[in-house]
């Protein structure tokens, strides 16, 4: 049995490629590979190894993605600032540089070999636990994202809720880091960071509620399934291509920027002003763990944004459906991460009062109005003909009108700055 199992799987490979798009060989490749591995094992152990394999694949794929997102970020920031970015790290013991692709590993070795300083008065256990808890919860969020047609690590009835529950628990780690450092500035910075995280939790949650309303489910797979299909074979039925979806996507991404401590909302650890905020007393690999968690959070939130608004793993057109779904997912993910980096390269940091005012006076009202808009959209789904145009018109107006009015109020008395001596 142990030998015949793998052989039958190998025999099935060409048969699988003959089936339709959903069962194309490339589409099923990860499953085939996994089943091939588990077919070596006795039956009672297979489910356990299946889960462990999913975990291992997620950790390695997103660990590598984390490493290369940091490199891509540094390179793209460099290019935008008229310099090439890190490109010198060679492959060890050779002189081959390959544009500095070994840089993340050099960084890892560096942070591993740095001294781990813990303040004398610190709460040693909590000081150690904070990065661990943060990283653990950020990794947990990866469990429910559908990476491909057949690639959902855990199918949960309330998957979206699970995702944001795990995301909310990271606040705890921020508090633990600030408090356990026994440094009043760390604690103050942790409080500031918490104020920011709690402020932006609300627009983040309100931004995805319309999706749940329209899709009628909290399960990530069903939300992705609700976005299947195309109009005229070119316009996909993604939520982002509806007025409420576009607004929700924008609000979600802005709140995601703030939740993952990314510029222009990176004032919890503003390097130039606060040293590192609640991370002041962290060094070496613990500091690297915080960064890893930040990037994991960013990647996970981007993955969730893709699931909720950008059609998940669906291809944008049936003509390109031969490209496997997980490639589409990773492509969309890369595009969103590129957006994060681009935004970081462009915008200056907000002030604390601007940050909270932006959340409470602009994003939250817009998100609430957007919820009503989505309710209207799902109630008017049977409108057709000229009513279809009316439906779009009303929906667009409900998005644009409040945006213009609230935006005018937000920027009242703030003229565009004129730089007299800049060219």
């Amino acid at each position, binding site marked *: 049995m142990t030998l015949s199992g793998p052989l039958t799987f190998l025999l099935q490979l060409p048969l699988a490629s003959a089936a339709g798009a959903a069962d194309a060989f490339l589409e099923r490749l990860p499953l085939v590979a996994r089943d091939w591995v588990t077919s070596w094992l006795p039956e009672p152990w297979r489910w356990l190894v299946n889960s462990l394999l999913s975990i291992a694949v997620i950790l390695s794929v997103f660990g590598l993605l984390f490493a290369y997102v940091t490199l891509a970020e540094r390179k793209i920031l460099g*290019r*935008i*600032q*008229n*310099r090439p970015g890190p490109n010198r790290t060679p492959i060890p013991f050779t002189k081959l540089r390959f544009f500095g692709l070994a840089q993340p590993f050099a960084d890892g070795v560096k942070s591993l070999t740095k001294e781990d300083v813990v303040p004398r008065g610190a709460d040693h256990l909590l000081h150690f636990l904070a990065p661990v808890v943060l990283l653990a919860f950020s990794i947990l969020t990866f469990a429910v994202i559908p990476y491909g047609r057949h690639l959902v690590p855990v199918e949960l009835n309330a998957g979206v809720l699970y995702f944001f529950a795990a995301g909310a628990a990271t606040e705890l780690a921020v508090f633990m880091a600030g408090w356990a450092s026994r440094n009043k500035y760390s604690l103050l910075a942790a409080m500031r960071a918490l104020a920011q995280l709690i402020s932006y939790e609300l627009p983040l949650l309100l931004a995805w509620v319309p999706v749940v309303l329209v899709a009628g489910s909290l399960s990530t797979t069903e939300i992705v399934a609700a976005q299947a299909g195309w109009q005229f074979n070119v316009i996909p039925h993604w939520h982002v291509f509806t007025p409420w979806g576009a607004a929700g996507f924008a609000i979600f991404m802005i709140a995601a920027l703030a939740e993952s401590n990314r510029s222009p909302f990176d004032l919890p650890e503003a390097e130039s002003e606060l040293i590192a905020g609640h991370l002041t007393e962290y060094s070496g690999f613990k500091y690297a763990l915080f960064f890893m968690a930040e990037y994991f959070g960013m990647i996970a939130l981007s993955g969730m944004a893709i699931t909720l608004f950008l059609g998940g793993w669906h291809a944008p057109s049936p003509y390109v459906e031969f490209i496997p779904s997980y490639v589409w997912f990773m492509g969309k993910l890369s595009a969103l991460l590129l957006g994060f980096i*681009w935004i970081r390269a*462009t*915008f200056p940091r907000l002030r604390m009062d601007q940050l909270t005012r932006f959340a409470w006076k602009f994003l939250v009202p817009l998100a609430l109005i957007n919820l009503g808009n989505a309710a209207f959209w799902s109630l008017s789904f049977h409108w057709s003909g000229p009513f279809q145009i009316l439906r779009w018109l009303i929906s667009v107006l409900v998005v644009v009108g409040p945006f213009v009015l609230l*935006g005018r109020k*937000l920027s009242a008395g703030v003229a565009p700055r004129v730089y007299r001596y800049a060219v």
Partner: protein
Amino acid sequence: MLGTGLLQGLGVTAKNFVGSFHDPARLTTIEYPEVKTKLPEAYRNFPFLVTENATDPMGTLRCVACQICEKECPPQCIYIEKSKDKKPDATGKPQLFPAVFAIDTSVCMSCQICVEVCPFEAIKMDQVYEIATTDRFSALLLNREQLAKSNAYYHEIHPTEAAEVDARLAAERKAAEEKAAAAAAAKAAAAAAKASPVAKPPLTA
């Protein structure tokens, strides 16, 4: 409207990013150890001794060991020992030469005073900057052989200045040759006058 400025900013950074791949003005970094910048002509760092001929640097040093630079050097980093004998210089005239000429670059402050005071255009400012060593004593004490660099190298690093110097030297040599020729002619004339007392005395030179 709110957000237009943000979009403009994104446009600026995107232009910079795309431009960095094809527009050299948007990617100005020069990757130093592989590529070196062309230094400005006026850049100077540590003196060197000019030799006329690169194939025989020690034989054609312009320095005549007059020791003016040694005396003028504010941090006193130059050490010279005169030779016992004389050697013909570039013009064939027998001259003293430095048996030892050492500059301690750990003391030198690149003030260029040695260059200003040298009457023979024999010491000029170099453009070296990769001078880090693992030995801070002997490796930073440059001797005659290390200091000697050809006139062609001087033309390479300070072209304008070197051309002026060459023109001046050529003029001096020409003047010296003319003077020598005149002196020789006078000598010959004197000799001729001595040989034939009837002849007219020569014109005063």
